[in-house]
């Protein structure tokens, strides 16, 4: 948007909403929203507390292990579905089902099978992230230009060479897009998993704050979690833009 | 221009025609860096087909869109029938490179869309649309959808839509570039026939030298970056012969050759 000839970047509107929040909070209109400034001041308090530190470490650990497993499983799975029609037909409906199904309903099962601990949260992250990574990888592998494959074949490339030197790089933009979406879903998974287990990590903190109506602490924690989610997604997006260079060459 | 091209004098109305479209000192800049057009002065005589020809990036489509009123000029002006152009008008109709057909509408509704926007009642506008669908050779396809048609047939719908609003000036933006070669030739021949029935002024953007020479009364050659008028050529080819004869005519071949020699410097 431009005001008086100056372009105001879109993200500035978040500042605008922050001010609205502050005003609403000061007026005390909605119990739900304490003034943003109080929340921000509480931020330091929350960040410094040992309880938060433990929860953050647990969250990060579960998240990265989960995403790692999701990538390690999802990319080969997507590759298999992209290259083999049989695999695609057998696995396709399940992957498509799980990518849009309300997987939160499965968390109670995971809790029974894996216990009320870290393992459950890791499995939740994997379950949330793996399907979209597989689907995007499959799309990328299917999309590899046939003339590139024919080229590799005509120069006598082995199957392994074709996979590692052609298909992987040609599909990389889609794989990364899938991983970015997987990361976003994984963050939701790590939060939902902890909320449902509710006796450890962030879930315990959220439970504690909302049960005791500590709104400022609650929002401070929420802001931290949102910030982490956006930061993680943005990090992958930057990586993606670098890879877009290849994509531009490929589609150009 | 070669002697041969000058020698073949057509019975064209070029000498008598007064300009319908006048372009005066026209310039166009995108931002502060890119200068697309500089100091264009052109007259487009009534009833003639004028091609804008040039290498890619010479601003020919930009010029056409400014005449259409779809883009504002940075400086200079365009007059149509003596009226200054400030936006699209009823006396001009545009044929789009990518057809711009509504995918959810049938051939009839697409062809009648210009009239629909003008508030013409359904029965009347569909009657007009059917007439022009027949004229462009698509009768029997009235209730088909664009995705059921080939590229050439889709562009025929685009042409019928432009004809249906009964504008004096048809602006065609590379209308055949998304049509395959055989259909393009057929379409070109049909367009020549159509010109004998409908008395329109046509402005035609193309990057094909052969197409320009084959179709045009006048060819405006544009040079690239910034686009300027480098030459205006009148092929003077008699059109009352068969297409094959025209394509073997020495005037046709010589004009193609002349233009190619002028343009080859721009090839990269």
């Amino acid at each position, binding site marked *: *948007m431009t005001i008086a000839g100056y372009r*105001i970047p*879109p993200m500035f*509107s*978040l500042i605008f909403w922050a001010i609205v929040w502050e005003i609403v909070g000061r007026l005390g209109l909605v119990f739900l929203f304490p003034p943003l400034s109080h929340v921000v001041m509480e931020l330091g308090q929350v960040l410094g507390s040992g309880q938060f530190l433990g929860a953050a470490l647990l969250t990060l650990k579960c998240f990265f292990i989960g995403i790692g497993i999701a990538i390690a499983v999802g990319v080969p799975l997507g590759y298999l579905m992209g290259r083999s029609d049989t695999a695609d*037909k*057998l696995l396709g409906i399940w992957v498509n*089902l799980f990518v*849009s*199904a*309300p997987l*939160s*309903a499965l*968390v*109670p*099962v995971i809790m*029974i*099978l894996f216990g009320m601990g870290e393992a459950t949260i890791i499995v939740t992250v994997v379950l949330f992230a793996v399907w979209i990574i597989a689907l995007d990888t499959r799309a990328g592998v299917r999309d590899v230009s046939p003339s590139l494959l024919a080229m590799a074949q005509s120069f006598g490339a082995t199957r392994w060479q074709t996979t590692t030197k052609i298909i992987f790089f040609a599909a990389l933009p889609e794989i990364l897009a899938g991983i970015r979406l997987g990361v976003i879903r994984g*963050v*939701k998974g*790590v*939060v*939902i998993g902890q*909320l*449902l287990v509710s006796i450890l990590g962030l879930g315990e903190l959220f439970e504690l704050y*909302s049960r005791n109506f500590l709104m400022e602490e609650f929002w401070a*924690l929420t802001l931290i*979690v*949102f910030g982490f*989610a*956006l930061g993680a997604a943005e990090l992958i997006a930057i990586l993606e833009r670098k890879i877009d260079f290849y994509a531009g060459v490929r589609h150009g | 221009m070669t002697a041969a091209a000058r020698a073949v004098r057509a019975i064209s109305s070029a000498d008598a025609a007064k300009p319908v479209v006048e372009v005066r000192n026209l310039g166009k800049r995108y931002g502060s860096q890119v200068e697309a057009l500089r100091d264009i002065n052109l007259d487009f005589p009534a009833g003639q087909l004028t091609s804008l020809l040039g290498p890619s990036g010479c601003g020919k489509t930009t010029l056409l869109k400014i005449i*259409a*009123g*779809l883009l504002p000029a940075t400086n200079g002006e365009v007059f149509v029938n003596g009226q200054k152009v400030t*936006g*699209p008008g*009823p006396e*001009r*109709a*545009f044929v*789009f490179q990518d057809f*711009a057909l509504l*995918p*959810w509408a049938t051939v009839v509704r697409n062809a009648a*869309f*210009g009239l*629909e*926007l*003008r508030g013409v009642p359904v029965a009347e506008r569909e009657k007009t649309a059917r007439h022009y669908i027949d004229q462009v*050779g698509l009768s029997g*396809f009235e209730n088909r*959808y664009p*995705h*059921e*048609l*080939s590229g050439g*047939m889709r562009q025929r719908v685009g042409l019928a839509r432009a004809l249906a609003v009964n504008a004096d000036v048809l602006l065609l933006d590379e209308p055949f570039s998304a049509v395959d070669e055989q*259909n393009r030739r057929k379409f070109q021949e*049909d367009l020549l*026939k159509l010109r004998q029935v409908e008395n329109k002024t046509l402005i035609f953007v193309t990057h094909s030298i052969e197409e320009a020479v084959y179709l045009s009364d006048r060819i405006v050659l544009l040079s690239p970056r910034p686009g300027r008028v480098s030459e205006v050529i009148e092929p003077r080819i008699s059109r009352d012969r068969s297409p094959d004869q025209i394509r073997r005519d020495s005037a046709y071949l010589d004009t193609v050759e002349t233009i190619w020699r002028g343009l080859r410097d721009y090839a990269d």
Partner: protein
Amino acid sequence: MSVQTNSQIAGGVDAAREGAATTATSGESILLWRLASIVLFCLAWEIAGRIPINVAFPPFSEVVMAFGRIVADGTLPAAFLDTLQPLVIGVFLATAVGIVMGVGMGLREELEWAGVPVFVVMQAAPMAALIPLITFIYGIGLTAKVLSVIILALPVIALNGYKAVRNVSPSLRAMCRSFLGSRRQEIFKVILPDASPMIFAGLRLGISAGFVGVILAELLITPTGIGDLITYHRSIANYSEMYAAIATIILFAAITVGLLERIEIALFRPEKKEHA
């Protein structure tokens, strides 16, 4: 142009018919493959349950029988009604508000500036974290569930509406202007029809997100509906019943979303219909 272009027209139609014929034959085999895939999945489940890999992992056949039991005693249908009510209300409200906001953001720059970043944040962030709060504020009734559905469904519906309007073919818009269409005509005759497939796709994603919202609300705090059924049978170690409830709601969500996808293709994508 009296000369008919017979050869070309016939060619086009033939090509279309050929395409339809090949997809028709592969359509049957796709169905067979799906059946095979489902049978294999159930078989694997049955075997894993019989080994058993875990005491809390019943074989498929027992889950099917449990499904029969909870349907027969009426708990599953009742739970479904409890779950669907807030879902339908929430999705309806999110759709109405989301489409208006999304289209508005696509058409007007100030709305885009003010709204898009907020929805982008809402979509990327784990909004589920707010559900416990909502339940504490609005109690454990219908309101809390409806709100949970809305906060999860609204961002994707609004953002899809926005993107849909932004992705309308510029050449169609130019066409409308060149044939003297007014702004109103441009919006109603070109922009909205061209945007509707993507708006509808947003609706589908919104419903998918709404399912997550309502189930989370039920699992987390509000002890009603399917969520309660799951929690209850887990607490008394009726694992087969629990699996049946979970599988039912997941399948129900997947089938609903799948049906919407079919409707989407039938309504908006004439060019894709024969490949569906």
